[in-house]
């Protein structure tokens, strides 16, 4: 199981305030499906509105990203710039 960390409030509203989840997924696409199943709305929020940091590297679009059970997976807001 991979630990997914939710630090900001954007996703916590779907999880009832939970900041850590254990997921069976090892790909971003599976993660989205699992989150949507467990917390309706969260998968869509993650897929469309969030970036994902996997082992410290921020993926603005993690659609093809993979991770392992040991990975650090953090859901953070998407970053823009000036």
């Amino acid at each position, binding site marked *: 199981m991979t630990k997914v*960390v*939710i*630090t*900001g*409030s*954007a996703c*916590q*509203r779907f999880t009832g*305030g939970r*900041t850590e989840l254990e997921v069976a997924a090892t790909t971003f696409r599976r993660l989205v499906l699992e989150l949507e199943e467990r917390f309706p709305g969260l998968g869509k929020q993650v897929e*469309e*509105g969030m970036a994902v*940091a996997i*082992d*410290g*590297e*921020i*993926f*603005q*679009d*993690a659609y093809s*990203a993979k991770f392992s059970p040991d990975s*650090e997976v*953090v*859901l*953070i*807001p*998407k*970053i*823009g*710039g*000036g």
Partner: protein
Amino acid sequence: MNYVSSDLKVVGTRPIRPDGVEKVTGRAQFGADMRMAGMIWGKVLRSPHAHAKILSIDTSKAEKLPGVKAVVTAKDFPHIANEEAFVGEGPMNFRDLSRNCLAWDKALYEGHAVAAVAAATPAIADAALELIDVNYEVLPYVIDVEDAMADNAPVLHEDLFTAGVEPKPTKPSNIAKVVTFKKGDAEAGFKDADVIIEGRYTTKAVHQAYIEPHACLCWHNPDGQVMIYSSSQGHFMVRAYCSKLLGINIANIRAVPLEIGGGFGGKTLVYLEPVAIALSKKAGRPVKMQMTRDEVFRASGPTSGATMEVKLGAKKDGSIVAARQVLKYQAGAFPGSPIGPGCMCGFAMYDIPNVDVVGYDVVSNRPKVAAYRAPGAPISSWAVECALDDLARKLGKDPIEIREQNGARNGTKTHYGPTHQNIGFLETLKAAKNHPHWQAPLKPGQGRGIACGFWFNIGGESSAGCHIGEDGTVVAVSGNPDIGGSRASIGMMVAEVLGVPAEQVRTIIPDTSSIGFSFLTGGSRVTFATGMAATQAAERVVEDLKRRAAQIWEIPVEAVEWKDGKAYPAGSNAGAFEPLDLATLALRAGRTGGPIGAEVSLNAQGAGPGFGVHIADVEVDHETGAVKILRYTAIQDVGKAIHPSYVEGQIQGGAAQGIGWALNEEYIYDKNGKMDNSGFLDYRVPVASDVPMIEAVMVEVPNPRHPFGARGVGEVPIIPPMAAIGNAICAATGVRLHDLPMSPPKVRAALDEVAPKMAAE
């Protein structure tokens, strides 16, 4: 392929900038330079009120004025639902964007566009604006962020309910969103602290102050084809937004990028283009529009002003054990301040076990904010870096050493979640400590300050190409407008891969119908992401060239190597052949498979974050309150400087804008909620005589995810200046200023306030 450890011949050198001659001779084509046969002029009628219901708009008199070809209002735009939509450019509330281009039922700020005309001449268009009769019901307005948060504040949007709080509110509010980030237990951390520092800080809205006002020329052909000529930070962004706002198929819009006279984030939106297209469609003529400087200030996005509270707790040895920040950011008339990154950046540079950050995104009767270099970060870092300086002073610690002691390094877990990897913050601090500036003596009355900055940097979708001409010269193609030197850097990376001089490569930026999609030029992403695409395109060309050489020599392609712009047999076993250079292979291209070229589209990930450390020396005139910057050094981890002069220019430019933010720039409102200083005489950006030579020091900790190690460099340098200068003023005078800008009246008032106390001591 990764070239970080290679013997680089082009990358890292300083060839003459490719756009230099056109710009210094005044020949470069900016938005306002465009002309087209049959062109007419568009002008915008703007609200004189900060907040008003639009009861009716009567355009009949204007339409009858000879020379007027079209009049449009928001009713000429399709109705768009109030929801975020995705068209490849990230989330955007297109209803709000549409209503910002032309007000729907309410004018939400002074300067809000309410109608537009197109006429044969600018003078006729101006006269027509005078004939449009708008019946307003003036409403109470609110400008200040904390006033807007108050229970009794005038509400801008009846359908805006605060997101991010539970239970979901049932009453509309100007607080669009609350965001929180927590790490550890801040309350327990503060209890464990030996020393506590607290402060309340404010910043004012400041404009990006690009020299070139927004301008466009648009032509809605009767067959539905649309041409857009405009200077922006992304012609694909312009295409996508116009498509969405006007209901036009993307394939029917061709957006042509022009030179851009500065953007800094402020040109990542559309203001005029959809209006010009709507006017053109009605008039059957090409329509040109350009803002005046007054319009730029009143109607295009500045960045947020803010109010913040910051609290730091530390042990006597200087280790920070707890931190808290509350941030309230102005969003302008529609939700969407940079509160998220603001919350994430303030403490991102430090390894703090217990952190609590709360941010508020607040609408008020101001122009909708737009991105501005490292959006949100300069504001939050202004507060944090000043508080950290106070902490160092209270503990008797050196301000660099306390940052080194608590500084983020590889493996530091941030308060917003991710663990830092491959970062160069400590290296920049070390470079600052070892720089002669830090050791140089100061005269009495002078002060030195230091502050740091962090920005994530981003990658994203990019397209680039590499095409070999018949004579062996090279055209590199980039999908991104060149704002900070990307034509040079992309051409140089292509030249490096091909093994040819930089001068042999010409980089161009084609229109949206001539290259694959590229996300906009922003977030310091282009040299990283589009440069990655260009590098890969050049690598594909090299592979193709090797294949062609192998075909000519009748040997396996594996027996060919590419070096210094030529194909060589790889060792004596491959055969004894004279090398084939690019020109020779290009000449024979028809016989070996046809034209030589490649395009690559990718979605780049792995942008390495950037860190900067700035040192400022100041002198304060106690009579006038004027602050003079005596010396300024900006140190930054740039990964790898592709063209060092451009990188230095980015660092110097960001620092200069930060100096303006620190000392003079601010939106000033009168008692009626109208901007009082919408011109460069009254909104004072720094001029050459205000700023010393800014020494840019490049630290190079390569980003392993980029073929040449590049990191984005354009965002970081605007983050530290405000606090570096504030800390220098504090060192010079003993007075801590909490409010930006630290303009002469404010400095003088602060000095006057403490003078009796200091005299008594």
